[in-house]
């Protein structure tokens, strides 16, 4: 079967899920299937089909499973949000429309995505600058102590860190394609440790600096881990030197320890992570209430979950029991309602996306493509790890979205751009008649 036909068939599960999911919400609410509710499903399926047709013409050879997997997550996410708050689901659907427009736009604008290399410093600078936007007085917004959002007139709050991660990956892939050999060859061994040459390492130190800056300025440990982890992944694949990764990890750990240790917001997050059930921390504003409630919600789920729409989210008087159920803690709601099995199924879909992404990296015919695919897959995987790990108390809980499932425009838009880039790389890699092999190692 041709790739695009496989994609079409693979979209069927997503279609079934979105239909069954909405039906389940309606039955649970004991409301009739109204026109409005049916249009939700229909519009969503129509969008998927339209995107598929665009891909059929624009990227005929691209990986056939990535888009269906993402559609599966997105449809699941929109049903989940609909269950939490129908009004938010409508907005989320609008974000999907915007996301898909930008997705298609990216595909057409960068059909030869290697043009991105020409603008790598611009892209890096923009990426770093928008990361700092939340600190600009007047447009910045603080949520739970972290500076993550920017107020945009039409769209509402926007989280630049989401876009920033894509920009920085593009820069890293491009920069390391040029310098990877120099980094390896110019390295000297000192006391058994391979030290890269400082001259070429400089720009990479900037990335380290940016991660630390993220920590100091936007006070967000999650974004910091995501950025730096993505950086290390690309660096490792580019140089095949574990020692570089180790040096990076040590530098990050030291930086996080000394800098993060002096930022109240970060230390309180770590305290809450270590002692979630300590009454003093539990009752403190911005304390461990969130992580404790997240764990309590999951404990309710058990193996099979309480059933869709059955999780307790509010107190009888209407106050919320589980904070941020549609964004940060959506994984806890999924676990509560669908149990360990449901949560693992969601994780499996993410793992498959990462697997497809890394497969694209393996198939790519030039270093830039490989590194770009590695970087995008790595930040995607890390984002899932940071938020799910936070919700399940593997690492301190930070405000990162669960890609394609959490409510949030910037997350949807940024991840659709990420997906577009992966598909662009994939289409080129899988094209039957090899194009130019320029840049191949």
């Amino acid at each position, binding site marked *: 079967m041709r790739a695009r036909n496989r994609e079409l068939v693979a979209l069927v599960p997503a279609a079934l899920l979105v239909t069954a999911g909405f039906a389940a919400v309606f039955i649970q609410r004991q409301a009739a299937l109204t026109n409005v509710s049916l249009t939700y499903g229909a519009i969503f399926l129509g969008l998927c089909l339209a995107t598929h047709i665009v891909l059929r013409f624009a990227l005929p050879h691209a990986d056939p499973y990535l888009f269906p997997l993402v559609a599966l997550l997105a449809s699941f996410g929109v049903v989940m949000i609909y269950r939490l708050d129908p009004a938010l689901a409508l907005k989320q659907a609008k974000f999907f429309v915007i996301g898909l427009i930008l997705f298609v736009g990216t595909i057409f604008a960068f059909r030869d995505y290697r043009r991105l290399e020409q603008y790598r410093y611009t892209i890096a600078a923009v990426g770093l600058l928008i990361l700092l936007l939340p600190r600009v007085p007047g447009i910045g917004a603080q949520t739970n102590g972290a500076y993550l959002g920017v107020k945009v007139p039409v769209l509402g709050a926007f989280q630049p860190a989401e876009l920033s991660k894509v920009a920085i990956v593009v820069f890293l892939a491009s920069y390391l394609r040029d310098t990877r050999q120099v980094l390896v060859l110019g390295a000297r061994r000192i006391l058994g440790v391979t030290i890269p040459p400082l001259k070429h390492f400089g720009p990479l130190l900037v990335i380290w600096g940016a991660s630390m800056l993220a920590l100091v300025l936007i006070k967000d440990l999650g974004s910091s881990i995501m950025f730096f982890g993505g950086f290390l992944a690309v660096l490792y694949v580019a140089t095949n030197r574990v020692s570089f990764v180790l040096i990076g990890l040590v530098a990050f750990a030291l930086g996080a320890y000394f800098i993060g240790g002096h930022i109240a917001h970060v230390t309180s997050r770590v305290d809450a992570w270590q002692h979630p059930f300590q009454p003093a921390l539990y009752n403190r504003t911005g304390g461990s209430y969130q992580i404790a409630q997240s*764990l*309590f919600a999951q404990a309710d789920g058990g193996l099979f979950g309480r059933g869709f729409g059955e999780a*307790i989210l509010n107190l*009888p*008087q209407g106050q919320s*029991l589980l904070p941020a159920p549609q964004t940060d803690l959506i994984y806890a709601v999924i676990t509560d309602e669908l149990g360990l099995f449901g949560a*693992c199924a969601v994780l499996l879909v993410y793992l498959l996306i*990462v697997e497809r992404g890394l497969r694209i990296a393996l198939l790519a015919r030039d270093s830039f493509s490989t590194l770009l695919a590695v970087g995008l897959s790595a930040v995607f995987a890390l984002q899932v790890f940071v938020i799910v*790990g936070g919700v399940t108390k593997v690492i301190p809980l930070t405000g990162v979205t669960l890609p394609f499932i959490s409510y949030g425009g910037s997350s949807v838009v940024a991840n659709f751009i990420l997906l577009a880039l992966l598909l662009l790389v994939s289409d080129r890699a899988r094209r039957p008649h090899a194009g130019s092999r320029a840049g191949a190692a």
Partner: protein
Amino acid sequence: MSKPILRLYVLVLVLFSTLVVATSWSTVFGASGLRDNPLNQRSLLQELQIRRGLILAADGRTVLARSVRGPGHTFERSYPTPAIFSHEVGYSNARLGQRVGLERSRNAALTGDTNELGSIFDQLSGKEREGQNVVTTLDPVAQKVAIDQLGNRKGSVVALDPRTGAVRVMASFPGFDPNNLPSGKEQAALGSPLLNRATQAHYPPGSTFKVVTAAAALDTRRFTPSSVLSGKSPITVSGVPLANDNNDQFGPIDLTTALTKSVNTVWAQVAVRLGRSTMAKYMQRFGFYKTPQLDYPKTQLAVSRVFSFRGRPLGPDSKQTDIGRVGIGQGGLGVTPLQMAMVASAVANGGRLMRPHLTDRIVDRDGRTVQRIGSHLQATVMSAGAARSLGKMMQQVVKDPEGTGTAAQIGGTAVAGKTGTAQVGTLGSNLTQPWFIAFAPADNPKVAIAVTVERSQGGFGGTVAAPIAKRVLEALLPRG
């Protein structure tokens, strides 16, 4: 560059495995700890959202407990018959985290906590979890009569169906209002209203215990109803003199007469001759020395047994047991009214003691019977012949004009009974614990009963307890 990519993929696998492990911990392995965490309000909220089933009287109509809508999607419990059925029904207060009585022992049915598979089907069909109704064996009319008859006297009435073990009446006064629980101060002023005197109080049984001694005497065939013993008073038991009431003197009398007139010295001799181990064996068959098998919370069921004079429970084979005095209901015996009703019930049912139960059946919302409790044999206490003989002796107690239980006579129905009047309080005080145990109709028993009143001012079993028993029996019999 393919090797590092593969390694990177392995790392991603490891990270995601960590997430699966962490999720397993929070959902399965660490879940019970998380649910029990004092900060976790979820089980409470869940409980408030469940519409508990009804608790109904035996007629299937009289509602003893129901759920009404509270704020949000929650339910609150309402008890329409507060002072009458307070102890049997108990209360369920999710906010206090407290549950007693049938609300506790039948909590699983009342909350619809069925098996895992059933609840999955319910979830798939989108059905709200609903409690099942509990239909009790309690007779609302007789229960009301029992409470009224106790008047303002602290005490208890327990009536069983000897053929099935069904608890028809389980009255305890004072009661309480489960809709509005009394504070600690109020409880002290009212005299422990939360205590279910039918199952939790330890009272000396007085002469009603002679029925147990007589059962042992007849069933071992060491004695017959016409065995003759000396009724002189006082005699020495365990080195201490023991006298009849008013130090009445009797010549050689048979056991039937000795029971009718409740002669202490005769029954003390019988108990001593039977010996500790035989007495203990029969006591255990009647249910002494173990928690009653009633469908009621274990914490609200006291064990009837012998206590040392320091108040320490003694084992069935304890050398400290003064068996002569135990044989006439003294010697440190502490029994519950439920236990004495079981004694009467075993005699009434031809020596076969049926396991007592408060629940008749569990019915789902659609009226289908989910579970029927049915009757179960708890123990064969004595032979049918011994039970018949003992029943005849107990009939004399009520029938014989010189018997102590004449106040329990019911026109047209033969009643078999035994009175008891235990001395309580300090020596010389006039405080008594009057008792009456009985069953009726004597030839075809349908009800077995035990009645006791706390700290009566010189009242006797025959004058205080027997009239109460008569009224309750009358209420139960015509329809029984």
